[in-house]
């Protein structure tokens, strides 16, 4: 039976967000946020964020999710999972940050200069092509895209690494890469988003 899919682009970003988040195991816990700020104070990078992690949920509740998606907040999450393990309401905030990153990309909220988004996209492209990631092409492309001058600044370290045999230039390509690529493309055409809610009876 083919799955009936709502066209995601027809829905508001908040609706898509909630639908996706509720599909993560225990995702509905986001409703139980008590705005205590444990996440913000546990976060090693929150001081540099436009909005603290707590304010992400406050914004959601106020119907201001878009300001979060435009902000640097989500791209500063380093996936340390401190917020997730300490949250007294059991909210998996790190997973929610991933979801916000995906939506920011999908709905075009990302500023051109958002470096973390660029590196993530490059990462995905390379993995999709080869099945594995090699650091040199990733780093190289990243700096060429963002700031070629910074790449020059990297040279001394790169040279040191290269001399020590730590900079292989050619990525390994896995044998199953082609199959995998087809499967993952199909996954997104025919498959439901993990967000599709499990039917409850």
């Amino acid at each position, binding site marked *: 039976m083919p799955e009936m899919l709502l066209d995601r682009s027809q829905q508001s970003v908040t609706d898509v967000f909630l639908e996706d988040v509720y*599909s993560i195991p225990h995702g509905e816990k986001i409703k139980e946020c008590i705005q205590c700020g444990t996440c913000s104070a546990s976060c090693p990078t929150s001081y540099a964020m436009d909005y603290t992690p707590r304010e992400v949920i406050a914004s959601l509740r106020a119907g201001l999710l878009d300001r979060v998606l435009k902000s640097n907040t989500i791209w500063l999450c380093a996936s340390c999972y401190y917020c997730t393990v300490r949250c007294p309401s059991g909210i998996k905030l790190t997973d929610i940050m991933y979801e916000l990153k995906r939506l920011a990309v999908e709905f075009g909220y990302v500023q051109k200069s958002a470096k973390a988004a660029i590196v993530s996209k490059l990462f995905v492209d390379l993995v999709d092509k080869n099945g594995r990631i090699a650091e040199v092409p990733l780093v190289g492309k990243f700096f060429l895209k963002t700031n070629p001058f910074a790449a020059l600044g990297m040279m001394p370290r790169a040279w040191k690494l290269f001399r*020590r045999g730590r900079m292989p230039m050619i990525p390994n390509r896995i044998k199953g890469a082609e199959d995998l690529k087809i499967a993952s493309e199909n996954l997104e055409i025919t498959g439901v988003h993990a967000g599709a809610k499990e039917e409850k009876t």
Partner: protein
Amino acid sequence: MNLQTTMNFSYYPGCSLEGMNKAYDKSARAVCDALGINLAELNDWNCCGASAYISIRELRAHLLSARNLAIAEKEKKDLVVVCPSCLTTLTKTNHYMAENPKLRQTISKALKETELQYWGSVKVRHLLEVIVNEVGQNEIKARIKNSLKDLKVAPYYGCQLTRPFGEIDDKEFPTILDTLLTWVGAKPVNFPVKTKCCGGMLMMTNEDVALGLVRNLLECARENGAECIATICPLCHMNLEAYQDNVNKHFGTDYKIPILYFTQIIGLAFGFSRKTLGIEEELTPSKALFEKHLEVIR
């Protein structure tokens, strides 16, 4: 001395061990060899779908993970990883597929197209935990050839060995690496930031933020008298080691703390050469340190 039994595991090195962190791979293999842990590299493994990937594509990330798990399932052995980020990603897919039937169906369907299937039986384990729990104190002590003479080590766990799942040890104050270091004759120092974040991938995109985090780690290690920092994560290792110069430049500090994989420290105690362990590939030299500390036990 020989171990009576050989322990067999599938081994997932992860992308970064093929590249900048080859030394981790080398030292891990050398140590496992000595301990009778037989690591069979997973056939045609792919990227685990780690943070940078799942930030863009959720389903595909799970598919990437699941492909590795499916290949591992055929081997009917536990899957050993060394990169904590791979550990978390693979474990997460394992858990979420078990908990969310819809996701399980979707991923299974996609796997089928690559002629694979995954039933959810693979146990993903970190090498550190395998060495401590499967090999144990006696077998490790029996292999020590060099005394580390109370080498003071800051045991640095980073984030994703214990978070979010906490299956290996306490989520914030683990002790498993401290224990292992003690077994090989080193002296773990008090290191209250042992599970604080090193900045991870932010080093590429928000260097200022990440350098600050690395500095906190280096400072705490020095405050507590550590002569080197033991790492278990290739990304932490990279940030602490390759960016130590940048930290010094940025903050006007003068840290010169050698950074070693925990497998390199065990390897040294086991009497392997620095070359075998890939220690010569490091950026912050530790030669002087070990000349002071290593003493062959007769």
